[in-house]
């Protein structure tokens, strides 16, 4: 329940200083008061803590808590510290209610990555200093024990606290002493008394529960979601009344294995042929049941379909590199030209005498991804490259894919993973995770570029973007990156996908966010727990009070 979902931290128990809103790209104060500010040299970022904020034990929440949270992260080398320690020098409390984040500086005296410093305030929780000290005492300063501690006695600042948890269900109960009732924040409590997060076996079980009204907000892929209201007449709706039903934010991507263990994938002609032969319209219409914008509507790049990101690159400059897919003729021509032909007459092409054969894979049970991978594999037959599918269980899949310090094993030639969705560091962070070689060699790489692509030119631009403030220059850099990505094809986007699907059953509750619901700022269609999406909990109404 308290996992930071991409760039929208889940703020039910623990809270962040700011909330990110993917719909308008702004951050709004939560624990903070007013906007944050950089100093003139952009080396320090400061913000104030809302004096009304207090912990569940009624002690005030102060800047010292923010500072000590960071100190503890660094001391115990948590993932949060690992992700930020190269960019943040220190976080200090200059008085009870003022926090200063000092950026790490490069040789020229400028912040290495102001973007990530800025993002810290909306993606990382503040934890109570007093409680962290209790915990440290309990585990005797042992980092492993600290991270494994169940924290049953935790003090938090959010509107909900733990009520019940086992492996099939997590239930949170509202804390009626929540500080956010203060007029300076929400002015009232969130409407539901309990929030139950039920863990279903698979999508089918989740859909059945949604149909039966056992689920109010479903954030899974429900195939042909429109049939739930058009054919079954159920009180179910989505953010948009018609296709694509949601707001595309992330780019589920098929990665080529470039770590050297897939014969022939180091050859650009092979990668390009596969990527342009895939029938994307069928993936979107059939695998995604139209819950994605098409590549005709939003040509492929590194950007998600939101207007803000689309405006960040020069469309005309890359137009001749973008492909719409299903282009068997060109794909075959590319392979013929590269001399990759079927010389032994078995129907499959060979490269230097060795048959090209690949396995395309994704986790078992992720139905939209599985069907998409099937369509990718079907393209192989059309161009004489033998592609078959395989679906390992997620537990196996994740361990294999995130191990970037050795070549990928057999069976992971073409594999599907996600990309970042929307967030305060986007699209830079998404591009970094799709293209940057800094993750190659990590033993546990949950960032991206799982195929092991390495391009020094791209790395240089990715490193330079966070310090660039000139918009024209930024556009140039992004355009260049899109060009590299579409030229080298280390991976290729298969569809656009919402940050999280948002399908609601209004048997009990209504007034969930929908397009044009008049909320200001607009509440994004997430699962009502992440980032500014939490604002939706304050607007809910009972259908039959």
């Amino acid at each position, binding site marked *: 329940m308290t996992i930071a979902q991409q760039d929208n931290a889940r703020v039910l128990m623990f809270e962040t200083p700011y909330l990110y809103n993917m719909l308008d790209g702004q951050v709004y104060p939560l624990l903070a008061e007013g906007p944050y500010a950089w100093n003139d040299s952009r080396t320090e970022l400061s913000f104030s803590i809302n004096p009304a904020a207090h912990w569940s034990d009624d002690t005030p929440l102060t800047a010292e808590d923010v500072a000590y949270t960071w100190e503890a992260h660094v001391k115990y080398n948590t993932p949060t510290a690992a992700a930020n320690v190269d960019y943040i020098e220190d976080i200090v409390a200059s008085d009870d209610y003022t926090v200063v984040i000092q950026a790490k500086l490069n040789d020229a005296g400028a912040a290495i990555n102001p973007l990530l410093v800025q993002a810290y305030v909306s993606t990382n929780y503040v934890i109570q200093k007093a409680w962290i000290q209790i915990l440290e005492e309990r585990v005797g300063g042992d980092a492993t024990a600290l991270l494994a501690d169940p924290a049953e006695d935790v003090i938090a600042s959010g509107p909900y606290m733990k009520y019940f948890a086992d492996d099939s269900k997590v239930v949170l109960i509202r804390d009626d002493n929540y500080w956010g009732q203060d007029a300076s924040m929400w002015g009232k409590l969130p409407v539901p008394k309990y929030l139950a997060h039920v863990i279903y076996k698979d999508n089918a079980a989740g859909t059945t529960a949604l149909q039966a009204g056992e689920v109010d907000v479903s954030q899974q892929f429900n195939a*042909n979601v429109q049939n739930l209201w058009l054919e079954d007449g159920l009180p179910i709706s989505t953010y948009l*009344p018609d296709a694509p039903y949601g707001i595309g934010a992330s780019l589920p991507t098929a990665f080529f294995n470039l770590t050297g263990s897939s014969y022939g994938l180091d050859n650009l002609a092979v990668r390009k042929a596969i990527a342009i032969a895939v029938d994307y319209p069928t993936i979107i219409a*059939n695998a995604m049941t139209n819950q994605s914008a098409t590549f005709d509507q939003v040509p492929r790049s590194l950007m998600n379909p939101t207007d803000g990101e689309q405006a960040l690159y020069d469309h005309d400059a890359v137009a001749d590199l973008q492909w719409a897919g299903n282009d068997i003729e060109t794909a075959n021509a590319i392979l013929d030209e590269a001399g990759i032909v079927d010389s032994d007459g078995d129907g499959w092409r060979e490269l230097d005498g060795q048959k090209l054969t690949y396995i395309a894979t994704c986790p078992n049970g992720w139905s939209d991804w599985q069907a998409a991978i*099937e369509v990718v594999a079907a393209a192989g037959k059309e161009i004489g490259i033998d592609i*078959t599918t395989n679906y390992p269980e997620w537990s196996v899949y994740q361990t294999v894919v995130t191990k970037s310090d050795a070549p990928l094993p057999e069976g992971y030639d073409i594999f599907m993973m996600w990309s970042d969705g929307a967030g305060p560091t986007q699209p830079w962070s998404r591009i970094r995770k799709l293209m940057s070689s800094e993750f190659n060699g990590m033993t546990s790489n949950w960032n991206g570029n799982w195929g092991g692509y390495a391009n020094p030119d791209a790395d240089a631009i990715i490193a330079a973007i966070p310090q660039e403030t000139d918009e024209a220059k930024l556009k140039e850099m992004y355009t260049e990156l899109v060009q590299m990505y579409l030229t080298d094809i280390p991976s290729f986007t298969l569809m656009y996908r919402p940050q999280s699907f948002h399908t609601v059953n209004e048997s009990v509750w209504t007034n969930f966010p929908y397009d044009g619901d008049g909320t200001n700022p607009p509440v994004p269609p997430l699962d009502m727990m992440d980032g500014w999406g939490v604002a939706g909990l304050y607007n809910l109404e009972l259908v039959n009070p």
Partner: protein
Amino acid sequence: MKHTFRQVFRSGKFLVGFVIFMAIVLTVLIYPLFIKYPPLDVVSRGTFLPPGIYVNVYDSMSSSLRYTLLLDDAASRRIASKLSHEDRLAMQEWLVAMGVPEDEIDIEDTVKLLELWKNNFDPTARFPGMTNADRNYYIRLNTSLDGLLATEGATVAALNQETGVLEEKGIINQTDYVNVGEVPNVRVLPLGTDNFGRDVLTELVKATGVSLSIGLVAGVVATSIGLLLGLISGYMGGLVDDLIVFINNLFTVIPSFVLLILISFSIGQEQRGAFTIAVVIGLTSWVWTARAVRAQVISLRNRDHVNLSKLSGHSVAHILTTDILPYIASYVIMALILQISSGILIEAGLSILGLGPRTTDVPTLGLMMNWGMIYQAHIMGKWWAYFPVIVIIALISFSMNLMNTGLDQVFNPALRD
């Protein structure tokens, strides 16, 4: 031999089973001769199109052969298709919520109802207890009611590529009909399409063929192994018999389906063609055939004619094939039939677990079920994507078991009437 056949075909059970089975086999053989669609071709953008006849709208619009039919109920059917009784009740609910007195609303009077609706409907209005789903429904309803009572035709216009202006191409009247036989593009999808947008019937016919061949290969492999081991172990006895019985017991106690899953999994999807799967199924399901054959052979071993053969100095192979095999042939045929039918079921079971043949090569009945389940056809009520598959599997097993029972009646002296 002739006599035996005649006897077999006199058995009603065998005959019914045989007819059903042959009907399935013939369909599998004949259908592709007439309908040449590739079975794995994606024909529809969009999943699970319902069964029916799909007529190209563009072709029917631009068809020069238009007929005028004056059908009395055309208008009322058109209205009913867009305005059901439930819709009328929902409109009444809206109007009442908006303050129209209930006695002014007559939901059966379409003209009056639509008039009230037009004067009162406001897409932005909310009444207590109204959900977003309701709001979307009313907006959809309002859109579909637009021009419902119009009597004039619809104007067809095309964009002039040069000037960018819409030009009128003609008018389609409400009494215009086309003859489906004269429309160039009509596709009949008797069982609709599946989650990939493939023609289910064509896929089903192909899948039935593949599953039958899987069953046949698996059955032949299993029966051959079982027969060979049973014959050798029953006839030879001694150490050979002990060894074979030992192996047989080993395989008996390991659940064969678990073994099958392990083998399938270790082969990897890469090598898992339909034929490989069939062989693997055969290799794991010979145990009971071998046991039964061994038992029969032991009882035959000391018969007079076998001893006579031995004295004449015939070889073991000769004795087995001429003196023993004919006596158990009927049993072996029955075992084969059961093995084929269970081979088909086992493939379906494997594929549902995602361990069947590679999915991009050929359809099989199990794979069709697997994808139907993954895409929730059974939850969303898309019966055509999985129910025909179940029916075919059931029919194959049923017909084979019937044949088996029929044969049993003929050959088993204990059951003879």
